[in-house]
């Protein structure tokens, strides 16, 4: 059985009139890659800084790696690595010195610290750059250094706040592969926040959608997709050759079809239940050929937008 590594209990943070985090209850199990998803200003970063003890909650609390975030904040920071959003480095120090400083702050003995630093620089592919000042680094390199910095304490849990923001596709993929590798090879639990839905879909095993400080939904990605398509019925895309307007009319007439629309040469048929066979029979009856037929999958974006709209309502 998996056991929870993060468990928030009615976690609340109020700034003036704004409830940045509002009675948030979320659970992240050990070994997961948990995606914290939400539009800008939903409370993702606030949640993360509350968990790290960088800000005090107005009400409620959370247990992270077995410690209370208010009373055991220092112990939480001992076993949780953080890559903050827009992480900063001492630009006038080398990559190696930056990491060594963080290692020392974690009370690593000198020799172990040096070993760990070169190990991590190897792991994130910065060995050749270890003696170069960080001011010369590209964004992608800084982000990789940030990952090394989060890992130096050998954490049980790492939190990445918007890890791929501002990176090019290659850099994004590097970071993504690194996160997946850490999770797979070292069994590290990862919590990452993002507003890039695609990113979360490719990386995470489960996801929590946050809006206006509230958790709207928390589930595995497959469950969410299933839930959503059941709710919306089926949707199948056809690519046809020699289609005629009469054909579309006839399809609309089929019992069970809820929606027919055609754009860019693709016919999109929404149905209450599976009537794919009936639809294809009609198509062949009109002498048209089916070039392509596939069920339309709901991307996380659809799910996200739906929940987001629900949240707004």
């Amino acid at each position, binding site marked *: 059985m998996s056991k929870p590594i993060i468990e928030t209990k009615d976690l609340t943070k109020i700034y003036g009139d704004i409830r940045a985090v509002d009675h948030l209850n979320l659970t992240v199990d050990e070994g997961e890659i948990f995606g914290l998803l939400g539009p800008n200003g939903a409370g993702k*970063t606030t949640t993360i*800084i509350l968990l*790290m*003890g*960088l*800000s005090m909650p107005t009400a409620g609390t959370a247990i992270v790696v077995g410690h209370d975030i208010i009373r055991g904040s*220092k*112990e939480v*920071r*001992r076993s*949780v690595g*953080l890559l*903050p*959003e*827009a*992480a*900063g*480095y*001492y*630009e006038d120090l080398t990559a190696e010195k930056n990491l060594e*400083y*963080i290692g*020392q*702050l*974690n*009370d690593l003995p000198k020799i172990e610290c040096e070993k760990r630093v070169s190990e991590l620089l190897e792991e994130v592919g910065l060995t050749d750059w270890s003696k170069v000042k960080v001011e010369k680094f590209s964004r992608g390199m800084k982000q990789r250094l940030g990952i090394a*910095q989060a890992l130096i*304490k050998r954490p049980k849990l790492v939190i990445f*706040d918007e890890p791929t923001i501002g990176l090019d596709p290659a850099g994004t993929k590097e970071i993504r592969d690194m996160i997946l590798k850490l999770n797979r090879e070292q069994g590290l639990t990862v919590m990452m926040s993002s507003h890039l839905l695609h990113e979360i879909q490719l990386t995470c095993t489960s996801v929590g959608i946050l809006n206006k400080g509230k958790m709207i939904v928390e589930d595995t990605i497959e469950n969410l997709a299933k839930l959503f398509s059941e709710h919306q019925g089926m949707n199948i895309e056809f690519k046809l050759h020699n289609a005629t307007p009469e054909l579309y009319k006839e399809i609309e007439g089929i019992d069970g079809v809820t929606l027919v629309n055609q754009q860019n040469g693709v016919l999109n048929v929404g149905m209450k239940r599976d009537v794919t066979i009936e639809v294809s029979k009609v198509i062949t009856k009109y002498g048209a050929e089916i070039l392509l037929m596939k069920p339309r999958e709901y991307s996380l974006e659809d799910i996200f937008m739906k929940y987001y709209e629900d949240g707004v309502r």
Partner: protein
Amino acid sequence: MAGSMTVFRKEMADQFGSKRFLILLGIIGLLSIMSAYQGVEYLKNNPQRGFLAIFTGQEFGFSFIQLMVFFGPIIGLALGFDAINKERTSGTLSTVLSQPIFRDSVLNGKFLAGTVAVTTLTISTIGLMIGLAIPMLGFGPTIDGAFSIISLTLLTILYLAFWLSLGTLFSVLTKKTSTSMLASVGTWLTCVIVISILASLIANAMVPLPSFQGTFTQGNRTQGGGFNPQISPEYRALTEQRFTIQSTISKVSPTNLYSEAASAILGVAQSRAGFGIINTNPTRTLTLSQGLAASWANIAAIAVGLVICFVASYIKFLRSEIRPGG
């Protein structure tokens, strides 16, 4: 505590390797050479004064004490004004504070490193001055004089540490380094110039001087038939009253607290109270214990100011929210 020491070690390396520190060291070095030279010139012209006069004597311009009054705030504030907010804006603060340390370690480590830096500056300045003055004069301080110099060194370190703590407070209170720099410059000008001007204005409003005719009593005719004006006792009383008001108001400024205390330690009873007022009788001398007794309140006030700034920084920093990027 381990966290404090780690921060301290890093900050020490930063401070002593920084261009800022080297620039300050250069300025201070240059100025102390100049003030040593002046002090020596003064001593040559006033041979009745002891070795300590190299710190107070002003032949053409600033004495050591006046240099510290003027540049001390800059040194302390420059070393402290961006201690916290620079790390806040560059995003390193959230990284550092997400390590297993208490927040006060960061303040402690930084303040300690800053204090070591001002101590280094003070000792090198005073050391440089003594090192230059002894060969030029051909004699050194007496034993009592040496104790006075040690007291002066400690007082100067305390004074600079006060400015350092004020700078640190500004860096905690403001988000941007440009704001805290502006606050520092404003404070510096206020303490060094504005308060003195204000003190003169207030004194002038409270005790207006009579018009010029009443200023002098009828002069006695002298042999040459010349006119020898004498200052009337009433006028003297008025100027003394004004002086008291001015120096009381000036005490608001730590720079004046320092110059009074430093003068007393060096055996000179109040050579200057702010700009423009030069005591007519700077040769009154005090022993070190008399000087310390006379300036005790001033020293305590500077120390209290330091503690207040430090505690205020503490409280504000411990409660503050550490958001990435400010």
